């Protein structure tokens, strides 16, 4: 039985080895690394855009239900009455955006305008290359620099956002791009600092190494995910908040705030270029979620040892879908922040909290052998909860009578 499960678990790896083994006979020597790369890329390019397509439908259905509507439920298989509960919608959307007219403003900087969506999509796709999707399944294992590579690519998306905003020659685009830059630069710091705790504890920048560091089994059944520590729990939520801001998700969707600045930096994009922006945005979110899973939720590890028979890549995908659903739920719940609230939250709350979290993670690591478990837990939580309460006071909504200075 165990062999069967292991075979399913390692099926993508065996398939790739088998294909490569057969190709070795017919293909020249120099082409084999290229083939290997192509074989690693193909599943990423197949799975994640498909996940994006399904997410667009699920998101619209979920938001609809949250607002007591039905959401899309019509488009199924064409020319039949099979509706598939609306899950054919993404194909219709894809055809629509492919056939739409591609409008470029007359005074736009045509080259930059054309390059911006591509310059956004490519780094986002590259970030997937270092994520471990399953046991032995990491397309590009960088033992020294995995996490660094991820963040470096993530940071380069800011450039393309600004390219889009600037080249459109539209004030809304530019406003959106400037908001995006301010937001991404501000939230990059808490994002990296909250990820840094894991690097401190695991002692490696390699993402597969970080997953391995959570493989230890506690009490005979529980995998030691970093989430199951005071600093990991807090760090995960800090990471999620910063990731939502990096990926322009509600409540941090100021760069494209459709009720204020039309569509932000992609106001002037239409047709397939718009679809590429859309795709890149969601793929960026998935990559961020994937990184959060790798850092805090044990990557492809199951939570309990006895669930280990389920293939590792199923665990990764399952956690990813769960996080996506959480983001959809948040989107249906939270209103958008104001720019000053956004900046204040990043610098006055997230940044101090991540620094304190780093400190707590350091204490946790130093006290591994000397202090009993319960004391470490209580101490760690106290060290985090008190600053959380103190810092959070300034950000609570104050509901009172409104004063309209000029109306009185």
């Amino acid at each position, binding site marked *: 039985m165990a062999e069967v499960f292991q075979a399913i678990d390692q099926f993508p790896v065996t398939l790739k080895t088998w294909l490569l083994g057969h190709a070795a006979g017919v293909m020249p020597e120099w082409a084999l690394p290229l083939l290997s790369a192509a074989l690693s890329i193909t599943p990423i390019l197949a799975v994640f855009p498909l996940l994006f397509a399904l997410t667009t439908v699920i998101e619209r259905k979920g938001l609809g239900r949250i607002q007591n*509507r*039905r959401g899309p439920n019509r488009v199924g298989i064409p020319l039949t009455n099979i509706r598939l509960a609306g899950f054919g919608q993404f194909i219709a959307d894809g055809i629509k955006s492919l056939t739409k007219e591609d409008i470029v403003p007359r005074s736009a900087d045509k080259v930059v305008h054309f390059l911006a969506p591509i310059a956004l999509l490519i780094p986002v796709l590259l970030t997937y290359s270092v994520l471990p999707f399953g046991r032995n399944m990491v397309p590009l294992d960088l033992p020294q620099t995995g996490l660094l590579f991820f963040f470096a690519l993530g940071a380069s998306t800011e450039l393309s956002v600004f390219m889009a905003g600037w080249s459109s020659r539209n004030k809304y685009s530019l406003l959106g791009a400037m908001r995006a830059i301010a937001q991404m630069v501000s939230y990059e710091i808490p994002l990296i600092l909250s990820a840094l705790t894991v690097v401190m504890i695991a002692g490696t920048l390699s993402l597969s190494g970080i997953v391995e560091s959570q493989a230890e089994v506690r009490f005979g059944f529980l995998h030691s995910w970093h989430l199951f520590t005071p600093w990991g729990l807090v760090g995960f939520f800090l990471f999620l908040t910063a990731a939502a801001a990096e990926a322009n998700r509600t409540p941090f969707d100021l760069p494209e705030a459709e009720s204020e600045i039309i569509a932000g930096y992609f106001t002037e994009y239409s047709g397939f270029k718009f679809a590429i922006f859309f795709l890149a945005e969601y793929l960026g979110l998935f990559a961020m979620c994937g990184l959060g899973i790798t850092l805090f939720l044990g990557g492809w590890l199951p939570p309990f040892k006895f669930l280990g028979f389920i293939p590792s890549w199923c665990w990764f995908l399952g956690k990813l879908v769960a996080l996506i659903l959480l983001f959809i739920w948040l989107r249906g719940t939270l209103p958008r922040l104001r720019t000053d609230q956004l900046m204040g939250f990043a610098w006055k709350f997230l940044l101090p909290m991540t620094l304190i979290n780093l400190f707590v993670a350091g204490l946790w690591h130093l006290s591994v052998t000397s202090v009993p478990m319960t004391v470490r837990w209580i101490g760690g939580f106290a060290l985090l909860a008190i600053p959380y309460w103190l810092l959070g006071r300034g950000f609570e909504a104050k509901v009172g009578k409104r004063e309209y200075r000029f109306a009185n």
Partner: protein
Amino acid sequence: MLGTGILKGMVETAKNFAGSYHDPERLTTVEYPEQRIAPKENARQFPMLIHDTEDPMKGLRCVACQICEKECPPQCIYIVKSKDKRADYKGQMQFYPATFDIDISVCMSCQICVEVCPFESIKMDTEFELSNTDRFGGLLIHKEQLAKSNEHYRKIHPADAAASDAVLAAEVAKAQAKAKADAEAKAAKAAAEAKAKADAAVAGTVPAPATSTAPQPTSPPAAPAA
């Protein structure tokens, strides 16, 4: 504490999410082409032209005065006045629109044309299924399509139609009363004149034809007061 509000909100949306599946009462929308909700009395889409007779083209109330054409903010009404005249609902001779087009791709459903029309002739329709494969010609609606019977108007906007009918009835009554008054005045005048002539004849000097001032059919004033 920071975050409790977020959790409360998330519980609320989760309740909505789950509730919309097991409690159809919550759903505020219907599945449109198959299910429809009863039309609302105050709904309005695009203007229509009211007619009173069997033949829509003969009974249009519109007299082509072109007030609506001038007042329409986006200028989407196009009217050509007829060369000849015909009797309107009061039996009065009026022009009629030879062409009456509304470009519903431009019309913004503001109802200003309805407010300014002095003849209760243009009203808002509730027809909304107007999609068309011809984006230019197909959305230019001619008077043949615009003409709708007064019964239709009564059905879709009962209260407004009753008010409009009352205005028209009052107009007709006023016109009839005026015609009657005019006729009586004329008759009285004719009688007085006849009497005067008779008196003169009695005097025996003027052999005048007394019948020449017999009451003629009265013609109503050229334009009724709105």
